């Protein structure tokens, strides 16, 4: 990098000349790499089962016939259209679970940042430690405890554990300490505002960017949830998409009494990633805004 202009005034600074081409090349290569599997999925979702194996243009281009709408139709009829039920379940788990997890994390983060209470340091350190525990260690005991209170095979079995989001608490705590001045809360209190009213009317509006981020993080977590639901659910009517599709994959893998539904697997996977991808594209500024808080030194 030799031809960089560094005397330009103003807050904008630019890379120019050869490095600019270099930057473009790097970014284009990166985009190709990160989009490659996505492109594959788009192509695969337009193929029939045998087209996936014997498509005349290979795996990265459309087959001679477009079977996307057929696949969509099949998704609507296979096992009485259970795929759309899974889709709706995933939405439910992600939105309700994500909302609950966010509410709880925001309250806890605010509590940690703005109140001095007994046991706080220990409590918070335990939460940080909790980030390190392997999920597998908890799945079996959780399952056994849930079946003890008849919670398995219910929506609750998936929704309740999703509410736990220690990282969200961590983010909210740091955001509150940084962006929410104590003086502001004190002023509200002096004006006679109760603790809850202060929280809802003074603190929440300022916390909005971080809340959005935690909400998105929780939704992604719930949307990707796989391991625990696959253990606590038996009734296919309650499955989220990830569990349903992995069951279809097992169904398609060689064995006695198997049937090949690879085409439903690829088109189902494609449709299932659309909502999240759209959410990412349209809400990206919230990501950048909110995550900055957690990342700067507290």
């Amino acid at each position: 990098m030799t031809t960089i202009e560094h005397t330009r005034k103003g807050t904008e600074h630019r890379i120019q000349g050869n490095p600019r081409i270099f930057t473009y090349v790097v970014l284009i290569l990166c985009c190709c790499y990160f989009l490659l599997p996505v492109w594959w999925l788009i192509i695969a979702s337009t193929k029939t089962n045998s087209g996936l194996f014997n498509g005349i243009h290979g795996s990265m281009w459309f087959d001679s016939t477009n079977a996307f709408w057929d696949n969509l139709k099949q998704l609507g009829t296979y096992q009485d259209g259970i795929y759309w039920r899974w889709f709706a379940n995933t939405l439910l788990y992600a939105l309700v679970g994500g909302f609950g997890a966010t509410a709880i994390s925001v309250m806890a983060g605010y509590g940690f940042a703005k109140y001095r209470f007994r046991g706080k340091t220990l409590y918070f350190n335990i939460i940080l430690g909790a980030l390190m525990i392997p999920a597998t260690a908890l799945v079996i005991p959780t399952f056994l405890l849930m079946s003890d209170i008849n919670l398995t095979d219910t929506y609750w079995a998936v929704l309740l554990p999703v509410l736990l989001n220690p990282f969200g608490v961590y983010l909210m705590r740091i955001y509150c300490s940084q962006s929410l001045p104590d003086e502001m809360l004190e002023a509200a209190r002096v004006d006679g505002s109760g603790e809850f009213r202060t929280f809802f009317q003074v603190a929440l509006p300022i916390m909005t960017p971080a809340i959005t981020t935690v909400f998105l993080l929780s939704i992604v977590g719930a949307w990707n949830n796989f391991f625990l639901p696959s253990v606590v659910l038996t009734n296919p009517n309650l499955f989220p998409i990830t569990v349903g599709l992995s069951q279809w994959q097992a169904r398609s893998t060689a064995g006695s009494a198997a049937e090949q539904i690879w085409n439903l697997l690829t088109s189902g996977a494609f449709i299932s990633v659309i909502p999240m991808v759209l959410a990412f594209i349209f809400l990206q500024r919230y990501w950048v805004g909110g995550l900055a808080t957690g990342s700067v030194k507290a």
Partner: protein
Amino acid sequence: MFQAKKILSVLATVAVSMSLAACGGSNSTGTASASADKHANDNASCTNKVVHASAEKVTVWAWYPGFQKIVDHFNQTHSNVQVCWNNGGQGGSEYTRFQNTIKAGKGAPDVIQLEYEAMPQFVAGKQKYLVDLADYGMKAYKSDYTAGAWNSVTFGSSSSIYAVPVDAGPFVMYVNQAVFDKYGIKVPTTWAEFEQAGKDLKAKGYTGKLTNWQTDGTAVNIALFAQKGAQVYKYTASDPTKVGIDFNQTSVKQVLKYWQNLAKEGLIDTADQSSTDTMKKFGAGDYATYVQASWFIGYYVKGAFKTATDSPFKIYEAPKWNDSTPDVNQGGSAFAVTYQAKDTKAAASVARELYGDDYAQNSGVTDGGLFPTWTKLLSSSEFITQTYPYLNNQKANEIIAPVAKGWKGDQFLPFQTYAYDAQQKAFASMVKSGTSVDSGVSSLTSSLRSYAEQQGFTIESVK
């Protein structure tokens, strides 16, 4: 502090209830006990729609293709009892779920589909989790099923029956007729001819492989050993604390050396069965033969080709070692009644009657691609003369049905999943890292035996 105490008290309650649940089993006589609650399943949620809403429900887990039709047929023809069906997962994942419901002490279905090889793990040791159907008159139906299937659900016992056989996987050879015709080679009937056919094909310029030996194959390798008269696993219901494990037999080594040698000569492929590449090669004509169970038609052959006329395959008898090579089997499953069945008697009748009539059996064959164990169907002329479009309209059952009838049954271990995983690793290292067959089988045998002992079993001879 107050918090901690509270948690511990909750935990103590949980712990006590768990240990009580664990003890509950040992008080019983070792067999699953009967119960007769006709309303326990009234609120069960089912994948299917029940026809007679007020009738008693029996819950069933099964993953057979086309099972919806079977369930609907059952519910339409029975007014006093209705099947409430869910797909509890395919094979292994269903067993895991079942295992979990056993740990939890509830949540298991009344009737469950189990592969023959998966059954011993649920009737071994301290408590049996499957109901002995001999107590529900199942003995009277022995002649309805092939000998091999019957032996597989009774584990060599004459008094106990742990499931109702549904399908099996008679072991046959799929032949890519186009390849054999093109190079003018005779379809082999013995393993010696099989090897020669591979050499001839290669010499004449065939670029594909003679076949694929699946080191990740599980039951397929047991079938290959059984052909040579070798039994590697032994477990009988009458002696549930003993297991036999022996790969260290001359016949097993001969089979493995045969395949290892074919691989060394470059005549065969050794790709994992479950990889999608294997399927692709199959469809592209890169395999001249495939030695596999009869259910392979429904799965691979249909999946690999766009239309039936694209498929060049036909079925032949599996190659033999000599005239006394037995008919063998790979896979198949049955309906068992679980110890958690709410109304054991009703569950037992559902298990038997689901595939217990002509309509269901025919649907199993045509919609499900299952190969029947029902002797009545196996000897019906319609079944024998049925043509398979994906096999060039061959009357394949003429070849498969005798194998199904000739099969004598197999035995598997109460920890078959573990054994299969160990088996896969051992066989893969024989073709991929050049481990010698002799050392491979002896370390496989000793590691499986020590696992069995650690699980409390006594080792017996497999003979």
